[in-house]
């Protein structure tokens, strides 16, 4: 994820992957969304030349959306299995709450608090995974239920804003920077590249994708369906745990239910990835691009001093374009 490159005119980087993808067909559909993306950025840049196409602005957009990006990485893995996780927002909230509480109530060092937060996320993800893989609970309704349960417990434990007693180093996780470039962006970028590689290039990812295509056939072919499901949910849980740390570190405080608002944007970004990546599959790169694109729209609209409903409207239309492109692509099969 190169923020500097995003500031320069974009046609060259967009054309290179397109050439590789040519065999997969659906040229018009394939270019619709990237074209809308580039057009939008150019439009905002022309209208707000002094403030929009600046490194500061793009860094700010990325930084604002770091928790979302981390979640998007995880959710792509579960979606490629053709399962759902509706609980990750609450897992993020619970992990953030526990991390903050372990510093405030139990005076733990910030590093340990981070580990505890991520561990809780992984554990809750494992609970989801066990329910889905070993008791064959449908993941959509199953994670809806666990999500509500986690939310209830989280609200019961810390039903108020916590702003004192948080280690300044914990807040530094997201605010430390080198030469104006936040270090956490590099950490998240590395994480996302790793998740993307895991999904696309490893045996685990290939098996996940096979399960998503035809779970019965995958099982008969000797794919360990249950283990893959469990690991995927644990991965989402861990990502959610990390997102919870980022959320609370960024705001410098814990406020009730911080992750719940990430649910829909994460799914929207993941579905945008279907139209942005290779092979019309869920992919981390496309999802990250999608998430940032949606964020760029809302930032651009705010910067243009336009009413907020315009951002909502544009984001909705973008999703619609993506889904229509996807449908047309499917129709031509």
């Amino acid at each position, binding site marked *: 994820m190169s923020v500097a490159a995003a500031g320069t005119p974009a046609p060259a980087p967009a054309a290179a992957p397109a050439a590789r993808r040519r065999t997969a067909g659906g040229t018009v559909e394939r270019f619709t969304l990237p074209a809308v993306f580039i057009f939008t950025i150019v439009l905002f840049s022309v209208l707000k030349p*002094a403030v929009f196409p600046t490194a500061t602005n793009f860094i700010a957009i990325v930084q*604002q959306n770091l928790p979302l990006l981390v979640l998007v990485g995880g959710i792509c893995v579960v979606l490629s299995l053709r399962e759902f996780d509706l609980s990750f927002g609450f897992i993020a909230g619970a992990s953030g709450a526990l991390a903050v509480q372990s510093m405030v109530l139990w005076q733990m060092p910030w590093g340990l608090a981070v580990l505890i937060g991520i561990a809780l996320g992984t554990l809750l993800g494992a609970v989801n995974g066990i329910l889905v893989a070993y*008791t064959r609970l449908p993941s959509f309704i199953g994670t809806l239920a666990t999500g509500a349960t986690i939310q209830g417990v989280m*609200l019961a434990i810390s039903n108020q*804003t916590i702003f004192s007693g948080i280690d300044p180093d914990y807040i530094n996780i997201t*605010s430390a920077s080198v030469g104006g470039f936040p270090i956490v962006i590099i950490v998240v970028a590395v994480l996302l590249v790793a998740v993307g590689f895991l999904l696309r290039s490893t045996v685990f990812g290939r098996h996940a994708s096979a399960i998503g295509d035809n779970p019965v056939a995958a099982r008969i072919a000797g794919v360990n369906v249950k283990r893959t499901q469990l690991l995927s949910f644990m991965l989402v849980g861990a990502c959610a745990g990390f997102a919870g740390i980022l959320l609370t570190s960024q705001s410098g*405080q814990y406020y009730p239910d911080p992750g719940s*608002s990430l649910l829909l944007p994460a799914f929207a970004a993941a579905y945008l990835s279907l139209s942005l990546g290779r092979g019309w599959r869920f992919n981390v790169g496309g999802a990250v691009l999608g998430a940032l694109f949606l964020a760029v729209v*809302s*930032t651009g609209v705010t910067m243009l001093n336009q009413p907020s409903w315009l951002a909502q409207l544009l984001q909705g239309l973008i999703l619609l374009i993506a889904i229509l492109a996807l449908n047309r692509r499917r129709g031509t099969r």
Partner: protein
Amino acid sequence: MFPNSSTSQMEYVMKLGPQRRIGAIASVIVAAALVLSGCSTASAPEATSASGLPVKTIGVWQSQASGDGEKQTLSAIQAAADAVGWKTVVTDSNGDPKAMASTMQSLITQKVDAILTVYVATGLIAPQLKAAKAAGIPVISVGYQGTPTDDLTAEYAPDQAEQTTMLLKRMGEDLPNGGTVAPLAVAGYYGIDQEVDTLKSEAGTYKFTPLERVDVPVTDIFGGTTSAAVDVLNANPDLAALFTTLDIGAQSAVPALTQTGRDVPIYSFGAIPGSLAFVRTGEVTLVTSDGAKSGFIAVDALLDYWVNGTAIPKTTPTEDAFEYTIVDKTTAPADGTEVYPEADFAKPFLDKWKTEYKI
């Protein structure tokens, strides 16, 4: 639950297959949770009135109970009700419009004697308000202004427009050259609209230019406010002030200053603990009121209505008028204390009830 019955439950659970076992465990947990909550409800002291006051049950309807401002208001309502020996039935809609209607309906169905709505969104529960009116249950909006409607019996809430005028005057003093002001808001709340409208109409007096209001999603007020503040700061290098309209607006805008490394003053509303923390460090200046007092005003009006038959006044009685004050770094109360402590605004009411009703 008898020990025997729980053992047999466990045996039953063990006999089942893994899927049914989990279902059974879940049902045991649910049952246990219900029993526990039942016990705690039952163990609450029976409301008997030693002083011969009528024994009443007050329904408390909250749109979203987790906010600090809402908690202060609820605490005042419960203190007032306890003082006169009334029971309270407290509901929380968690910000969910469907739950708002259903919790209101449940209070009406339970035939509570009166309903106090905390931070009401009248439009979302309009049918229930009509039903309550038809059933003769007084509904009083407390704490925060709702969209005016005839179906509310009364509303006791601080005036947001008046507070905005005070805040603007202070802003004018702090920033004599005026400049650009960015209002960060949430759509659909009457009180917030009052604040933004007042800002727009009076900004010229102090040479301020308000930007278009940014409405953050209701589902993501905290994060949305932070993001919007970052965007506004980046878009306006010369921004004079951020104007946040909700009580949690101040604390959610502060991280934006950290992230952008800017030093723009934040002006806001409501001295809740979260925002006071940043008032003390100087990032925030806010206007606040003793809005939580509205709980006592409402109980006072109901007492007068049920004991003496006096009609419930539709608006805040002049003798109980709310106080407004600007809180900044120099006037902020110490950590753990409030600008308007409950004990202070409760005292005149408790004294009055002691003499008039012999509580």
